[in-house]
């Protein structure tokens, strides 16, 4: 592998990183909104959020990519840049999973905490923000970090329908001209591993720490 080829892989890794960060930020915000909607006191809101999550979790990310890539075109917006379409699809996908993870964490906070906060005369918003969410956050950190690994890995399919140039796309382009699949896909796998493994370890460490303090 020449240094230019390696640089091209690194450029791809940069694309992967940018898409992952955008997904985590936007998907996280949407996921928080979904988690709130899932535990809303209004039944229609709860049902709508649950249905939306089922619709997204029951389909492959690649199909969402296709819908987000061709959808804006027929809505009259015209063709959108690859990064934008990929971010949109990934964020929708991530929000459905993060929303369910966080709903579980919020509901895992002990009911007496809600009741105590209510007795103190806090409004629903105050209860959520000052009593429940800080405790839920502790529970939510390990699975959230774990899902960040899923996001990084899933960005790899952004090249398939949309053609966003990320790490696996650049590796494939290099392989198409050199026919050394073990070298380029091996190097790409190592770069993915370098991005994911620290997060996996961190998630595990957080989980152990949390368990230790709860025992």
């Amino acid at each position, binding site marked *: 592998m020449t240094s230019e080829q390696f640089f091209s892989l690194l450029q791809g890794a940069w694309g992967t990183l940018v898409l992952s960060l955008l997904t985590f930020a936007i998907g996280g915000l949407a996921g928080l909104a979904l988690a709130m909607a899932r535990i809303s006191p209004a039944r229609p809101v709860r049902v709508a959020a649950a249905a939306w999550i089922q619709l997204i979790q029951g*389909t492959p990310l690649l199909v969402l990519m296709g*819908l987000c890539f*061709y959808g804006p075109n*027929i*809505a009259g917006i015209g063709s959108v840049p690859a990064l934008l379409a990929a971010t949109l699809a990934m964020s929708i996908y991530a929000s459905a999973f993060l929303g369910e993870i966080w709903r579980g964490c919020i509901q895992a906070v002990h009911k007496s905490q809600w009741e105590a906060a209510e007795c103190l005369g806090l409004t629903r918003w105050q209860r959520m923000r000052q009593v429940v969410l800080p405790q839920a956050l502790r529970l939510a950190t390990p699975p959230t970090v774990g899902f960040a690994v899923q996001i990084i890995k899933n960005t790899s399919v952004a090249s*398939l329908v949309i053609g966003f140039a990320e790490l*696996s796309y650049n590796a494939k382009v290099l392989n198409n001209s050199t026919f050394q699949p*073990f070298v380029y896909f091996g190097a790409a796998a190592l770069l993915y591993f370098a991005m994911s*493994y620290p997060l996996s370890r961190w998630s595990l460490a957080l989980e152990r720490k949390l368990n230790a303090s709860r025992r």
Partner: protein
Amino acid sequence: MKYEFDFASVLAQWPLFLEGAWTTVQLSFLATVLGFVLGALCAVGRGSRYGWLRRLVGAYVEAIRNTPLLVQSYFLVFGLSSVGATMPIMVGAVLALVINIGAYTCEILRAGIESIHGGQIEAAECLGLSHVQILWHVVLRPAVERVWPALTSQFVLMMLATSIMSSVGAEELLGVANRIQSDTFRNFEVFLVLWGLYLALSYLMRTGFWLLGLMVFTRRRKLGTPL
């Protein structure tokens, strides 16, 4: 600009969609069965008394869980064919899926195995059960029962991920969809139809796993308690 939906020309291709869906089902079924066997073997290997086996399985699980399925399939399918080991596309796709899902199944089963109380195994030893009997009746079956919901989710996610196999040439749902798109130029409609088909498949698969659970884990039904 007003877009006119045209589902008729897309749905006219229903035999192709059906063919693709059937391939998706075949891929998923093979990968589920073989992946479960591989995962169970690895989960047992991870609790082995041989340190080298534990480390080997650990390295396999970490390598697979921290790299994308797409790159794994490229590496496996294109890599093997570059050294002359060509194989039918379906074989390569199933191989990639099995190696991938085996690692996830191993982790889930390991959690189940670790949840089995040590006293259970000691009791089984006192009853004079053999090593294999203990492993099967006391450890594995209750462990699988406990993690059944997690396994269901993981295998449904894998069924959805079979769509990635279109990139190494498998003619499953997404693969035939690409062909239909180039025939009809109705990309958005094709993806909407795919959305519906995959939703139906994941619903069917969840129901199948639920029924299988009822059949295999009869004890829970008799006790009438949810786990």
